[in-house]
């Protein structure tokens, strides 16, 4: 059983706990909430002549967020994130199911899934660039055996971005799925078999419905970072695939239209808030 609070004597620790929480509370206010409030303020200001911000207050940036030109980037990001999430779900489910039924090797197999996740995201993206580019390993090998005459356009397109995202966030899907599948009682499957269900029927009608909480949590845990992705579309999408993250980065660096970039960041943050609400307490337990 999980022990959330520190025992019966907790009451004596209340003052100490409050003191201990203070530095982190101040840090979160100063370095998380205040910056978000400043983004909110910037989103309502006018772009200054040298890239800064100035008065008057205006809703112009928000109007532009819903401009069809940028709306297209918004929907494209949602689409890419949704496809990546669906692919993660399909790919992770059998793997999580396998790990959950692996007896003593469970922890090892799960850690093997998580290990690449903790190593550099940038390097893992670079590894795929090394494989997929025109002069990369796959194209070089295919050209060498004369399977193709010209390099296949594997990199710098939407497909490459989706591949990069699936590769990057697959562990986020495996983890919560594993958590629900591991709790699945074998006797339920036996009961289904006793009642005449084939393994497939038992799988579809018992395992799948019972793993729904993990699938929902995993989907949101993958969808959120995919929607806000910056590095993957930047490196693997080339100039053609622009997602919200790239747009925001561009507005704060090259284009220097901070109010517009701020409005788009807030929109992204609102979507994240919305999805975490759906995720609710379940997310806390699984993270």
């Amino acid at each position, binding site marked *: 059983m999980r022990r959330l609070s*520190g025992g019966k004597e907790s009451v004596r620790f209340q003052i100490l706990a409050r003191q201990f929480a203070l530095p982190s509370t101040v840090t*979160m206010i100063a*370095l998380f909430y205040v910056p978000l409030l400043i983004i909110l303020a910037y989103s309502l200001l006018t772009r200054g002549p040298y890239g800064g911000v100035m008065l008057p207050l205006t809703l112009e940036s928000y109007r532009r967020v819903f401009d069809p030109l940028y709306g297209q980037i918004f929907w494209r990001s949602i689409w890419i994130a949704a496809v990546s999430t669906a692919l993660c779900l399909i790919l992770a489910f059998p*793997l999580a199911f396998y790990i959950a039924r692996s007896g003593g090797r469970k922890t090892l197999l799960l850690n093997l899934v998580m290990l690449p996740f903790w190593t550099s*995201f*940038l390097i893992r993206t670079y590894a795929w660039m090394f494989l997929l580019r025109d002069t990369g390993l796959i194209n070089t090998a295919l050209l060498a055996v004369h399977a193709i005459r010209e390099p296949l356009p594997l990199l710098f397109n939407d497909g490459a971005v989706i591949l990069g995202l699936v590769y990057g966030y697959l562990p986020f899907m495996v983890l919560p799925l594993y958590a629900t599948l591991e709790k699945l009682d074998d006797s339920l499957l036996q009961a289904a078999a006793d009642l005449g269900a084939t393994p497939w029927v038992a799988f579809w009608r018992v395992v799948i419905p019972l793993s729904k909480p993990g699938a929902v949590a995993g989907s949101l845990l993958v969808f959120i970072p995919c929607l*806000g992705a910056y590095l993957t579309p930047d490196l693997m999408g080339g100039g053609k695939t622009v997602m919200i993250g790239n747009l925001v980065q561009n507005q704060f660096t090259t284009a220097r239209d901070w109010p517009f970039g701020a409005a788009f960041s807030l929109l992204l943050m609102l979507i*994240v808030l919305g999805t975490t609400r759906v995720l609710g307490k379940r997310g806390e337990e699984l993270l």
Partner: protein
Amino acid sequence: MRRLLAVYAGIAYLFLYAPLAVLAVFSFNASKIAVWQGFTLHWYGSVFHNPALLEGTLNSLVIAGAATVISTILGTLAGYAIWKRRMPWLTNSLYLSLLSPEIVTGVSLLAFFAWVFRFGHVQLGMHTVILAHISFSLAYVVLVILARLRTFDPTLEEAGLDLGATEWEVFRRITAPMLLPGIVAAALLCFTVSFDDYVITSLVAGVDSETLPMMVYAMARKGVSPEVNALSVMITVGLGSLILTAGRLERRGR
């Protein structure tokens, strides 16, 4: 069915590890292009003779080191506090910071620093990067500490209180020493996420604070080179061993 699943799992692990393995193999390739022409350690040597990369590594170590020390102290205290009384506001804030997209965290900190700098002649640099890293790594520390505390027996603390220790003494002399493997694990994890970060760092870094990931990024943009492969292998092996150590510490004494 079982065998089919095993085959599938094998392919899935191949998918996870093959790209990194291929990268590692070709970091020893004598040729600059993706054709094997013989074994060499030349690219590893050239990484060590690149002064810019060495400076970037030093910057990354200083930033990750400073952020880790501060985040680990703050996060350990916060984790303990959350364990003692629920503190929903702090807990939710930490989860939110964990889930908010890196790009949003990055630009909001950039806007924040730009706003603060209006009141003084400060510039972006190592200090802003360190502050940014504290803000996003704090939640990781708290998560590890809380996971550790959930297996901790509070009756040990009660015994301390019964024997006349104050709450602070109980924490200092009983809980903190027993938590130590968890604290070290949290610090290692924190160091890794800090050392690795590119997106947030690139937004709040100044001219004097270019980190190693920023250099890897710049090189990756220019194109693939065996030097980047060698560098990537060294970073991956270094951080990977930190994570494995953290994992072993985390499990020890459970």
